[in-house]
């Protein structure tokens, strides 16, 4: 009998101990964002509430435009399958500052626990084949504690496939999530400019 897999929250608590003020964290929809908001809310988090499958490409764009900061993308296996091509784009662009944490719970948790189209895919092998050489499988918190610090420090992109216990019931987020306000909070925290103030341009 196999040992039970760690929960999302347990992984997150390890992550919370490893992020610095410079680390930017992008979380995908549902509990990926809701649980992280409870464990480690900070202005440098960008929470997606919806837009399934788009957390990783968004984090890729962020990594390209913020090359001096480490960007962490928390994506689910179901979300990744919606845009599997993004792995290829990440491998092609090869941002040195991108770390991907792939929550591998073998279900569509955010939509109620439906099975994935396939649970047989070797996601780590797919990532390596796409050119993401720094890919490892994680099945325990001890392994995560060992592998996460170098994954956050090494030249990326790096990717950890986290075998995770499913968490289907939605967890109440730490606060009501207002997308434009969260985006503005994030951009203010990292000092992102607004372009072309047309009326008052000098």
């Amino acid at each position, binding site marked *: 009998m196999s040992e039970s897999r760690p929960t999302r929250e347990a992984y997150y608590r390890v992550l919370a101990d490893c992020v610095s003020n410079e680390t*930017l964290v*992008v979380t995908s929809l549902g509990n990926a964002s809701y649980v992280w908001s409870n464990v480690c809310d900070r202005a440098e988090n*960008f929470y*997606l509430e*919806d*837009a*399934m499958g*788009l957390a990783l*490409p*968004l*984090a*890729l*764009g*962020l*990594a*390209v*435009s*913020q090359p001096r900061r480490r960007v962490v993308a928390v994506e689910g296996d179901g979300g990744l399958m919606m*845009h599997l*091509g*993004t792995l*290829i*784009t990440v491998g*092609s*662009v090869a941002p040195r500052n991108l770390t991907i944490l792939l929550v591998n719970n073998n279900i569509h948790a955010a939509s109620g626990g439906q099975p994935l189209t396939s649970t047989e895919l070797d996601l780590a092998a797919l990532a390596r084949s796409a050119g993401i050489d720094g890919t490892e499988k994680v099945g325990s918190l001890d392994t995560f504690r060992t592998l996460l610090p170098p994954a956050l420090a090494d030249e990326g992109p790096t990717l950890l496939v986290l075998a995770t216990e499913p968490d289907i019931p939605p967890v109440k987020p730490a606060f009501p999530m207002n*997308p*434009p306000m969260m*985006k503005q909070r*994030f*951009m203010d925290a*990292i*000092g*992102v*400019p*607004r*372009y*072309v*103030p*047309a009326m008052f341009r000098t």
Partner: protein
Amino acid sequence: MNEETSHRPSELLAALKRAGVSVVVSVPDSWIGVFMDRIDEDPDMTLIRATHEEEALSISCGARLGGARTVLLIQNVGLLTTGAGMVCLAQRYQFPVLILASYRGSPRDPVFYHIPKGRATEPVLRAYGVSYSVAEADLPIGAQVERAATFAEEGSAPFVLLLDGEDIRW
């Protein structure tokens, strides 16, 4: 008028550089392929070749989130495939993304297999609630790009400029 300013793709590229665009995310079309190469050769711009237009839209949003001025460069069929990302991400989070789309299947591009895409493009954009304009052939393309970029920023929303082959095909 000299040769440089009469070449609309060159004007368009110059306008992007004047606007400080540093990241261009693209999925190819035969009209935009060489334009992509010109961007790829430019030391001040990064070209990201994405696998799907919705993925490309999200990359653009992420790059803008990080402060880079970005352009999404796609064929208009990509406006049909970006639907979920357009409403759930770009609009819901109010990302000012300038989208330059080759307008295949328009009355100026009567290629039979593009025509259904051309017929659907503007009604779909109106259904999304995304602002757009069709590039005017008798006006300089650079100024039209600048206005489109300004509209996206001031409106905190995506804006689509639909381009004819003369505008973008190098």
